[in-house]
């Protein structure tokens, strides 16, 4: 993809909407176009989290390997969504496996590089943190709803 096109597509990703131009340039300098085939793992639990991904097409499933129960999928991330915040938050390690359920096209952003830029430019750091904080909040609310098991026979095992 041509550099100008990369910028244009990146600019239009919902996660980056209204990001000031200079910060967009910072991101661009650490961005690349990536692709994963169906069946590939993007990363594994415990590995160092050096990147985050802005998904363009396809679907990634987050897996927890629950030992005797095998892999359990707890969330999928799809087009226009963002995958991975562990690059920004110590100890910078992945908490889940990420499995490409379909062919995935995404922007990969170099987290290590961007972390340094956050330290140097706190405005940029604030932009990143506030956007990721929103994602975290949405995921937390969703996870709690999933935890309540609202479609089950009793609410989270609590019988009234």
């Amino acid at each position, binding site marked *: 993809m041509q550099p100008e096109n990369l910028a244009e597509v990146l600019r239009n990703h919902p996660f980056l909407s209204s990001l000031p131009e200079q910060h967009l340039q910072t991101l661009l300098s650490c961005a690349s176009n990536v692709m994963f085939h169906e069946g590939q793992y993007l990363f594994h639990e415990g590995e160092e989290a050096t990147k985050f991904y802005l998904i363009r097409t396809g679907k990634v499933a987050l897996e927890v390997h629950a030992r005797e129960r095998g*892999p359990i999928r*707890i969330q999928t991330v799809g*087009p226009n969504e963002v995958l991975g915040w562990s690059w920004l938050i110590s100890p910078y390690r992945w908490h889940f496996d990420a499995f490409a359920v379909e062919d995935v096209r995404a922007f990969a952003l170099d987290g290590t590089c961007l972390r340094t830029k956050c330290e140097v430019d706190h405005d940029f750091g604030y932009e990143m943190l506030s956007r990721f904080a929103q994602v975290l909040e949405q995921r937390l609310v969703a996870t709690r709803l*999933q935890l309540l098991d*609202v479609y089950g*026979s009793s609410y989270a095992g609590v019988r009234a």
Partner: protein
Amino acid sequence: MNEELAVSSRRLVDPLLPHPVPIRRVVWETDDTFTLLLEPGGANGADFSFAPGQFNMLYAFGVGESAISISSDPYKPNIIAHTIHRVGAVTSALSRLKRGNFVGLRGPFGTSWPIDKAKGRDICIIAGGIGLAPLRPALYALFHRRKEYGRIMLLYGARSPLDLLYRVELEQWGKHYDVDVVVTVDRADSSWKGHIGVVTGLFNYVKLDAPATTAMVCGPEIMMYYAVEELLQRGVFEENIYLSMERNMKCAVGFCGHCQFGPKFICKDGPVFALPQVRFFLDKKEI
């Protein structure tokens, strides 16, 4: 306030006495959910019809009654379907019945989905768990006059892939009736290739023409609450959002008091409500 009924609903008999009707078929949808297909006309060919969203009181002889939404095609009322979650004494008793056994029927009761009012508009249907059952008649009614509606989207969330209802039909609707069907589950194993997450997350994958959209929502109350928030945030007007509420039903005719939700009797002012009628109470605890 009763929504205009797309299909007129005629009572079977005395709304206070259950009428024994035969079971024509039992289908197990999941390991704890089953569908009873009843022939309300039975031997004497009595008239029964209903509007999408209405419910019947089904009586298991000697055990008790349960309010169950009618989940079949309102244009084919000679056989009516009731998808039931086996969870208590009455539903367990109903789950042990076989073809040829008799179930007591009172109904239909309640208000219905705004099929007529929504003509010419896009329809966004959001179903959670067994909430898809009372919405299925709405889908059939929309398919009956498909050209009179714009886009139809179905966002459906279930506990896990094994808990999905009407799996074959979900695929058919997408293929044959020009419906955007998007399905998610709360959790899955590696054999599931679909979405995983809360049903409101599916809004990220559908583009709504909000002012032109009528939404119909049914599922656990907390899920409906979040779905409504999401719809409003995306610009759908509150008067175009409809919910189907649930409460403890006993008499189904507004006398026993149990089904009250604030001042509304779910059995006769609902179960289908336009959002403005109930919005004030949706975020109040233990109303």
